[in-house]
C-alpha cells in the first residue's frame, strides 16, 4: 500500500515538474536561447540613415582671354595717313606671355603723284581699302602700377609684340611682319585701356621696283577679360 502511494506520488511529482518546465519556457524564464544571427558586424549599434554629402565645389572662373576693339591712325607708306579701326583677341598663357590676333582696316589716301597730276588714279576704290590680320606673340616686359592722384593705383603693363600675318592692299594679299609695343592700363581687374604703336612691313612693287613698305600704326583700344 505504501509503495503504491509512493509510485503515485512520484508520478504526480514528475508530471508537475514537466508541466512547470513547460510553463517556464512559456514565460521566457527558461535557459537563454541563442539570439538570431545578426547580419550587422558586431559593434554597429545604430545604422546612420544620413547619406554622405558630396560637396560640389563651384567652378573657378578663368579669365585668360582678352577681347576688344581699337581706333587710331595708320600711315600707309606713300599713301598718307588715315583712321584705322579693328578688333583684338588675346589669350594669356602665363603672366608674361600672351598670344594675340588682331584685324584692322583703313583707307589709303592719295600719293603725291596722284595729287599733283590732278586726276590720274593709281588704285581703284576697292584697292585703296587696306585690311590686315596678324597673329602675334606678346610679352609683358614691364608690369607695374600707375598712380592717379594720391588715393588710386591702377595696374599697368608695358608689352612688346611681334608676329606674322597678311595685308590686303592694292589688289593683293601681302605677307606682313609686324612688331610694336603697347601699354595696358587696367581700369578694373577685367577692363583695360590700351595704347599701341606698331609697324607693319610688307613688300610692294606698285611703283615699278619692289620695296619693303613701313606702315606705322598708333591706336587706342579697350578690352575686356573673360
Amino acid at each position: 500500500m505504501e509503495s503504491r502511494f509512493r509510485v503515485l506520488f512520484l508520478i504526480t511529482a514528475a508530471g508537475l515538474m514537466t508541466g512547470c518546465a513547460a510553463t517556464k519556457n512559456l514565460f521566457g524564464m527558461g535557459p537563454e536561447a541563442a539570439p538570431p544571427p545578426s547580419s550587422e558586424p558586431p559593434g554597429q549599434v545604430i545604422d546612420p540613415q544620413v547619406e554622405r554629402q558630396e560637396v560640389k565645389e563651384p567652378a573657378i572662373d578663368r579669365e585668360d582671354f582678352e577681347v576688344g576693339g581699337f581706333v587710331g591712325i595708320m600711315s600707309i607708306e606713300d599713301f598718307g595717313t588715315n583712321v584705322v579701326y579693328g578688333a583684338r583677341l588675346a589669350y594669356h598663357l602665363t603672366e608674361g606671355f600672351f598670344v594675340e590676333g588682331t584685324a584692322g582696316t583703313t583707307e589709303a589716301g592719295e600719293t603725291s603723284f596722284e595729287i599733283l597730276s590732278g586726276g590720274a588714279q593709281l588704285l581703284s576704290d576697292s584697292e585703296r581699302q587696306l585690311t590686315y590680320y596678324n597673329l602675334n606673340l606678346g610679352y609683358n616686359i614691364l608690369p607695374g602700377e600707375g598712380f592717379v592722384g594720391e588715393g588710386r593705383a591702377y595696374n599697368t603693363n608695358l608689352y612688346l609684340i611681334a608676329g606674322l600675318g597678311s595685308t590686303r592692299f592694292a589688289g593683293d594679299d601681302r605677307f606682313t611682319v609686324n612688331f610694336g609695343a603697347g601699354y595696358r592700363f587696367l581700369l578694373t581687374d577685367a577692363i583695360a585701356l590700351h595704347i599701341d604703336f606698331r609697324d607693319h612691313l610688307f613688300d610692294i612693287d606698285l611703283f615699278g621696283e619692289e620695296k619693303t613698305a613701313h606702315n606705322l600704326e598708333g591706336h587706342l583700344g579697350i578690352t575686356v577679360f573673360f
Partner: protein
Amino acid sequence: MSEPSTSTIPSTRRKTRSAFADLLVVLFCQLILTGNVQAAEEALRQVAVADPYLEMHTGPGRGYPIFHVVDRGENVSIVVQRTDWYLVRTDRGTEGWVNRDQMELTLNPDGETFNVQRATIEDFTNAKWEIGVLAGDFGGANIVSLYGSYSLNPYVSVEAWGSQILGNFSNGWTGSVNVVHEAFPEWRVSPFFTLGAGVIHTEPKSTIVQGEDRTDQIGHVGAGFRVYTARRFVVRAEYKSYVVFTSRDDNEEVEEWKVGFAFFF
C-alpha cells in the same frame, strides 16, 4: 567713329562700315554687362588658409607688392583665376591676387588640398586639345598656318589646318585634315609622322601671270617634332611634302618647311 574725308567712297560702303562699328560697340557693352552679372550671381569657391599666412598682391604678376596677409584658418573666396594667379576675397571684402604656389597650400572645405591643376610634361603627352600657329616656306612662298588638334590617344591625333599662302607670283589658301602619329609621346622632344589630304586654292597675281584661279586637291606626307618647353607651351617644327592633283598632265610637288608654337589644354 570719325570718317575718313575721302569723297570717293560709295555710300553703301559707308553704311556697312558704321554698322560694323555699331556692332563692335554693342558687343562691348554686352560683354561688360554679362561679365558683371555673372560675377554677382555665381557662388564662389571657398578655401581655407593652411599655411601660416596667405600673401595678397596688388596685381597678377611678379613684382606687384604684397599689401595684405590672410592668417591661417581664415577662409577666402576665389573670385577669378588669370594664368597662375587667383583673385581672392577675404570675409571682410579685401581683394588681392595670390600666386598658384601659395594657393596650393590652402584647403578645400572637405579638408583636402586645393588642386591647382598645374600643367606638366604628362599633360603634354595626354592633353586632348592643342592649338598652334606656324609659319614658314611653301615652295618659295610664305605660308601662315593655324591648326587645331584632337588626340585620340597619346600616340594618334587628328588635326585640321588652315593656311594662307603669300607668294611673289600667286596667293592662295589651303585647308587640310591629317592624322599624326607620335612614336614616343612621352619624350620631351617628340617626333611625329603625318599623313593628310585637303584642298588648295591658288590665285595667280594678275599683274605678273595671266591665269585663272584654281582649286585642286592635295595630299601630303610629313614629319616633324613637338617640343615641350614649359607649362602649356609647345614648339613645333615640321616638313611636309605635298602633291597637288592638278587637272593638267603633271601633278605638282611642293615642299613645305614650317616652325611655330602651340599650346595644349
